[in-house]
Structures are given as C-alpha cells and as structure tokens.
C-alpha cells in the first residue's frame, strides 16, 4: 500500500471526524448530539493553543495535555500534523490540487519553488507568542532582578556579549547569540529601572490565525448555518452570527488562494505550521535524498505541498510530510529516514534578524498599546456581556481562542462573535446579544462553560449559576443587569399598558416587578352630565367608542378619595360604563369633574435578583432598540462593576 494513499485516508478520516464534531456540537442526549463526543479534541491537540495559554496564564489547562503528545510526535516524525491531520490543511490540500490540475509541469514546479515569503509565518508566530508572553517575561525579569546572584551573573554575561558583539564576530550564530543576550540585558536593565509587569500586558491572539480555531470558527459559524438554512436538520431555526461575513471572508480567501498557490495559508501565514517548522529541525525522521544519483528531473517537486525543495537542500521546517516526493521519484533517491539528506538540509527558518526583532518587539508592544485605550479598565464597554462562567476580562482575553465553540453550542444563539466592541483584542470572542437569538441566556443551561477548551469560560454547575445549594451564600452568577429605558418603555413613556418583560423574567422570585401607576389619559378630564349606578354621561369631549373597554382604564371622580377608582368596562362617545363591583353608591352630581385614567404597571428591576439573562430584552415588544436592555454592570466576575454593597 502506497504511503500517499494512507496519507489521503488519514486526511479524509480526520476531516470527517472534525466535521462530525462540528455537527454534534449541540445540546441533547441523542447519539448525534454533544453527549461525550470529544468535540474539542483538535483544539486540544494544537500545541499553539497549549503554548499560548501557558504563556498568558503560566499554567497548562489539563485538556491541553494532548498537545504534548503531538509535540513529541513532531520531534520524532516532523510536521505530520500539517500533512496528515489538520482539517484546514486538508481543505487547502484538496483545493490546491484542484487548482494545480491540468497545469504543465513547468508551471507546477514554478508554483512549488521555495519563496522568501514563507518566512512570514514565523514572524506571525513570533508576534503572537510575544503578544502572549509579555506578562510572563516581565515576571521572570522581576524574578531575576529580585535574585541578586542571578542578576549579577546575567549582567556580567550581557556585558561580555555586548563587547564581543560590538567588536564583531565572524560567526553568524555567535553574533545572533550576542544580540539575544544584549536584548536580554536591555530588558533586565529596563526591569531594573521600571516595574515592567505594570507596563507590559499579554493577550492570547493566536486564535485569529491558528488554523484549528480558525476552521472551527469558520465551519461552525458560517458554513453550517449556511448549509443548514434550507434543510433545517442541525438547527431548529436559522442561526445568525454577527460579523459572520468577515469570518467567512477570511476563510474563503484562505481557501481560494490555493488556486493561485497550493497551500498558500500553510506556506505563508499559518503560525501553527511555523511552530511545527521550528520543531521539525529536531525531528528524528526526515524526507531527504539518499544518494547523488538524482537526475534532477524535479518530478518530486511538482506536487510538493510544502515547497520545501526535496531535490535540492531540503527545507526541513517547510516539509509537511505529504510524501508526494516519495511517490513521484522514479529513481528511488528520495526517502523518509533518520539519516540527513545527501544533498544537504536547511534546518533553520529563513528569518532575518531585523524581522525577528521587529516581530518580537511588535508583539510585546502591541498589547500595551491597545490597552492604552482603557477598554480593560475605566473605559470598559457595558455592551460587552460575557457568557456565564467567564473569567475576569483580562484573564478571559488571556485564554479565549475565539474558536466559536461556545457560540455553536448555545441553544438560543445568543452567544455571538464580538466585533470591535471589546477592542481589537476582543475580536471574535464571545459576547451575548439578546436581540439576535431565540431567547435570552437560558436559565437552566451551562453548556458554553463546559464546551470551552481553555476554561476562558470556566465550567460551572447549575447550582453555581443559579446560586443554589452550596452556592446559596454567593448568590447567582450575574452576567449583567437589565435597565429599563424610561424613554422607550411603553408604560413609562407612552402610558401604554405592557408587562411583557415582567411576565417573561425566568428568575424566581422574579427580578422584574411592577409598580402600579394611574395616569390620566390625554383629554381624559371630563364633566359629568348625568349619572346612573353603572354609567355616567359626559359632556364636552367626544370619546372613541370602545377605547377604554379593555380593562386597563378607570374612572377617577375628583370628589372621591385619591385611592378610589372605578374600572371601566365600556364606553361610547359620551358614555362610560363601569364594572358591577364599582357601581356608584352615591351618584356624582352634574358638573363633577372626572378623570379617565389608565392603569400602568411600570417595570422595575431588582438589582439583587437580576442575573442579566436577557430574556426580558429579547421579549420586549419595542423590537428595535429595546426598552429594557442588559448591560454588563453588576456582573459577578468583576467586583469593580458591582452595583451592590
């Protein structure tokens, strides 16, 4: 059996498994629902996810230990994940194959020639890792500074390295070490002068370009809702995701670029591929030439997926182990083995020192620059409502992959990809939008917290969410608070009876209660012409027949006590009829002023009970800008936002 056939089977297998995981990511106990399917497995296999979260948090979330196995296998076999496992890579591979079909050999060879642009992905990787590692680096430097022996030794080494570097060394490698030590010394000195941990910030942004979160996000939030819009087999109704066009556009561009250059994303952009490339130099087994009998036919390069030049000095970091070169070589001079390639190997990614420094410094600097906007502190956006179980905003951003798993599993479609409401860092992180879904955040649901692969949404129990059992002392988890907009609420602003929000509030006892208020209707002050026990005749104003017959209108006689009102059951142009229990014991005299009043039940929010679930906002009949809206005030995860003493 040819190894390329096995590779194709492997790609199809993992792609089907990945699709299956996307399909079953919905609540339910049927076998094709979430149940115990390890839907995050590909994310857990991703070393960039594990490394990124280790850098931002200093800890490895247990589920991500799978990535260690992938790292070990990469050190043994090379970039097997890219060529054999990665579902996004398989899409590129297939589309690239379609784009390459029918092209002459010369054109295929040209397309697969190594390109300087392939170094870009390493800069991307470095940028993302540095953006993630700022706080950890600052802590380490502080540790160095706080430990005098280490600090003095490091300072001495740095000075020596600086001197040697300035005097000029012939060896590039030594020069690189010298520059590295110089930079280290600079940062150490900087840490000596200023407390870096108060300046440097870190953020996990690898999910933007990491292919695994990217493909999860694209399939779950764009492709499945599109494909299901006509069949309605996966979702009950149409799923909507804000900004899906951008997620879809990134995916589509990445895929279509394969028609121009095979595996464009893998070669030029993919930070995970870059990480594997860095590790691949250590790999035990590698593709390479076994002898010098090569005829230079270059057939091996015609279908090379990584543009790694197997016929020449093979670029080991670029080889994705597609094994096409083995299959194509008719002289058996290409092999996969432990010995180095007979024609030489390039083991280090082709990066310039300038580019390296630029990417690293940019990565370290970008997050502090973004944070200068104040979005993480005083200028936080109240529209950013995170799902229940979300960590505090800084910790959340340090863990969130933007993979969209929480959005996919949400049964009511209220968890949405964030645009720029949470700043640049928050792009595609989950926020709640209560207008777009089919309800609010469901009272008895904690699904998103259990499906999050990095615990940016920490797993919570229903008891914790609802503040029951052992959590009764803490109270329920609040994701925000509902505020009534008195300028838009029908009973508050328009004197129109409405208690939809109160009726739909799922909290028990209800977080929304009503205060009764009687308001005199427009032109509702009239004079009595004559009266009977169950009706009066009025003069002056002409009433619209039946307008006050719905049960919400009352008659207030000015001469009677303030609290005494009589319910109206019918009215004509000049008559008002009362309900039997409100008959007049003493008939009002002609000329008595009476008011027609509407009984309003004006909603009020109980700050201690409201969890910010958003059901009220979703159900509000003022369907544009809702008259009751949830914002992130009083959310449990941040004490500073508390409105309660």
């Amino acid at each position, binding site marked *: *059996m*040819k*190894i390329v*056939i*096995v590779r194709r*089977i*492997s790609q199809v*297998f993992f792609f089907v*498994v990945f699709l299956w995981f996307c399909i079953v990511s919905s*609540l*339910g*106990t*049927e076998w094709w*629902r*979430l*149940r*115990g*399917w*390890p839907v995050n*497995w590909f994310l857990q296999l991703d070393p960039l996810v594990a490394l990124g979260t280790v850098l931002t948090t200093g800890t490895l979330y247990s589920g991500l230990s799978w990535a260690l196995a992938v790292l070990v296998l990469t050190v043994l076999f090379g970039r097997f994940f890219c060529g054999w496992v990665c579902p996004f890579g398989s899409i590129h591979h297939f589309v690239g194959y379609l784009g390459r079909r029918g092209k002459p050999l010369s054109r295929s060879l040209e397309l697969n020639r190594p390109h300087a642009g392939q170094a870009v992905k390493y800069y991307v990787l470095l940028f993302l890792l540095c953006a993630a590692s700022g706080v950890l680096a600052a802590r380490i430097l502080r540790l160095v500074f706080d430990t005098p022996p280490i600090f003095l030794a490091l300072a001495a080494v740095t000075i020596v390295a600086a001197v040697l570097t300035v005097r000029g060394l012939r060896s590039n490698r030594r020069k690189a070490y010298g520059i590295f030590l110089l930079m280290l010394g600079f940062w150490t000195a900087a840490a000596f002068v200023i407390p870096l941990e108060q300046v440097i910030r870190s953020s996990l942004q690898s999910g933007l370009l990491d292919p695994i979160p990217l493909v999860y996000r694209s399939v779950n939030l764009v492709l499945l809702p599109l494909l299901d819009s006509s069949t309605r087999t996966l979702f009950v109704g149409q799923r909507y995701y804000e900004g899906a066009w951008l997620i879809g556009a990134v995916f589509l561009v990445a895929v279509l670029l394969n028609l121009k250059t095979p595996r464009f994303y893998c070669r030029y952009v993919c930070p995970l591929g870059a990480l594997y490339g860095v590790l691949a130099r250590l790999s035990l*087994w590698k593709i390479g030439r*076994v002898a010098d009998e090569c005829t230079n036919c270059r057939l091996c390069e015609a279908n090379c997926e990584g543009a790694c030049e197997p016929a020449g000095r093979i670029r080991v970091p670029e080889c994705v182990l597609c094994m096409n070169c083995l299959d194509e070589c008719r002289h*058996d001079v*290409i*092999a*996969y*083995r*432990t010995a180095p390639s007979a024609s030489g190997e390039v083991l280090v990614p082709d990066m310039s020192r300038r580019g390296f420094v630029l990417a690293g410094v940019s990565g370290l600097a970008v997050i502090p620059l973004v944070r200068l906007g104040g979005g993480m502190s005083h200028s936080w956006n109240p529209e950013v409502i995170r799902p229940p179980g979300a960590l505090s905003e800084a910790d959340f951003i340090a863990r969130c992959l933007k993979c969209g798993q929480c959005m996919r599993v949400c049964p009511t479609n209220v968890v949405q990809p964030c645009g720029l409401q949470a700043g640049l860092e928050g792009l595609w992180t989950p926020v709640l939008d209560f207008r777009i879904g089919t*309800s609010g955040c*469901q*009272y*008895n649901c904690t*699904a998103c917290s*259990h499906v999050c692969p990095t615990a940016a949404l920490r797993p919570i*129990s*229903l*008891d914790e969410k*609802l503040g*029951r*059992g052992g959590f*009764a002392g803490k109270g329920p988890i609040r994701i925000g608070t509902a505020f009534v907009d008195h300028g838009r609420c029908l009973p508050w602003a328009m004197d129109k009876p409405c208690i939809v929000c109160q*009726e*739909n*509030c*799922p*909290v*028990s*006892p*209800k977080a929304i209660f009503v205060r009764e208020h009687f308001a005199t209707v427009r032109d509702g002050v009239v004079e009595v012409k004559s009266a009977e026990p169950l009706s009066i005749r009025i003069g002056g104003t002409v009433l*619209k*027949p*039946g*307008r006050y*017959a*719905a*049960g*919400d209108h009352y008659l207030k006689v000015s001469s009677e006590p303030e609290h005494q009102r009589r319910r109206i*059951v*019918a009215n004509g142009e000049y008559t008002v009829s009362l309900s039997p229990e409100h008959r007049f014991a003493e008939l009002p005299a002609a000329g008595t002023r009476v008011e027609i009043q509407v009984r309003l039940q004006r909603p009020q929010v109980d700050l201690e009970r409201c969890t910010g679930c958003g*059901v009220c906002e979703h159900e509000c009949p003022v369907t544009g800008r809702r008259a009751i809206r949830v914002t992130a005030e009083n959310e449990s995860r941040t004490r500073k936002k508390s409105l309660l003493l």
Partner: protein
Amino acid sequence: MDSRPARTETYVGLVILFTLAVIAAGIFLKQFHYDAALFAPAVPETGSAPASSAGSSDGPDLSDYATAGLSPMSGVEVFGPETLSEKIDGKAEMYLSAGFKELRCRRFGRSDRPNEWLELFVYDMDNPRNAFAVFSLQKRADAEELSIVRFSYRTSNALYLVHGRHYVEIVASVESMAEDVLAVGLKFIQTMPAEGANVGEIGLFPPEGLDPSSVALHVSDVFGFSELDNTFTASYNVDGVTVTAFLSRRKSPEDAARMAEAYRRFLVENGATVTDANLGIEGARVLKVFDTFEVVFSKGSFLAGVHEADDGDVAGRLAVRLHQGIR
C-alpha cells in the same frame, strides 16, 4: 525507515490505518461517557429537595409510580407558584395563570445505565379543567394520541396526560425508554384516584372537519383580550383551508351577549372593521381584521365565533355550523 521496499511502506501504512481505527474506536467509546446533568436540568442529590422549593413538603414522594427495574435517582422536588419558574423556565406564567398549585417531580433510572432515566412531573392544577388547559395549550407537534385516559398523547420519548386535577408529564432521556414511560404513566393512572374533566364544551364543536387533537382551553387573556377567559378553540379544515372556531360558556345569556359586544369593540378598537355580511345568525357580526375575518356571536350562555380566518366565506359557513351545534 527506507521508502524503497514496498513491504515496509505497506507495513507502515497498515500500522497507521490501525492507529486511525483505534482513534475512531476511542472517540466512539468516549461519547458514551458524559454527565447527563449537563444536558438537562441538574439532578439534585438523592433524597434532597432544593432549598428554593416552596411547595408543601407533605405529600407523595412519587416513588409509588416507579415500575420494575426503575429506582429513584433523586429526591422528590416540590415547587410552588413562587418557585415554579426555577424548574420550567419560560412557561411558568402559563401554568400560574391556569391555576397551578404545586409541581412534584422526580427522576427514576436504572443503576446499571446512568444515562437512561426518566423524569415524572406531576402538576397539581387544582381542578381537571385547569389541567386540561395546560395539557391542551402545549401539545407537541409530533404527538401520537393515546387512549389510556381521555386526554393523553405521547412523543418519541415522553408521555403527556390529564388525570383528574393533575397534568402529568413523563420525559425520558432516551427514546428506547418509551415502554418504561408508558408503564409509569399507566401506574400513575391506576394508582391515583381521579375525577373526570368537565369539558363538555368540546362536544359542541361540530365534528365534520374538526381536528380533535387541536382542541385547547385558554384560561385567560384569550386572543389578547383581557376580559375574555375560559375559551375553547378548535382547528377545522374547511375546503382545504384551516380555520379556528372558538366557544366560551358564560354565566348567563346576558353575560354572553355583553361579552360578544365587548369583544367586537375590542377588535374595532384594534383596527377591525365591521362588514355588512349577513350570516342569518341573530346578532352575529363579521369583522375584517386587516387581512383576516373574525365572526362573533352569542347563543344562549355561549359566546362563539371564528377567529382569524383567511377566507370570509369559509369563516361564515363554519360559524353557521357552530351556531347550529350549540344547544
């Protein structure tokens, strides 16, 4: 590893394929292991009732209704009007407006199959009429009518019925427990004494074209009109058109006439116009509400009519038949 010998390549390929098979098997086995509580409202600890429960602690613990092989997986949960929404998010208002008194529920399952369980919900609705109201207002789309009691139906994994003052739901976690669900339902019916529901109005709906499963009792705020309560509705198929008829027994003929007039006024106030159609029914009015037709009349102590029909002619014909059926 040398690529030359095809045999080596084949062996390596087979090892890889075997690995894939192991991964597939691992994934398949993994899906059986999950916490069912994550996919449904949490199961409280055995023997405990939630602290928030506000129902009466006295009363049956529902264990009498467990059939062979089933044992309680939780303590009985009791909910009163104040706490009902904790258990049935979103629908509590419907139950409360229909006279809800108390909900008792409990899960039962098999110890050797933790993922297979059923939950028995017993709603005390104060009287059979109220129980029928909540039963009828939330009929599932895939309902299969049963004859174990007058008002009962089942879906692929659940059973719904009215028994005396109780509205009962039995919902299983898996479809394969359908027989257990039915057995528990039958045991409940056999064990719990009950009076029949007084829903005589149902018999007044003319049978031709009637969808019996569509009959529903609306307790309050019928058709958005706060004064109108206690109204039955039923769907008819008339010449391929689906139409809704309604019927409400009032306290007296005068009250029925007054309510008919009040409802007509309510419709007019909300944009309806009275047409000059004459159905030959004394006092009947045909109103045009935007693109639909509404017929309202009273006969004896009954308020009746046709609601939101797309075709005025069909609405008129059904109203005449309904009028003839009321005795």
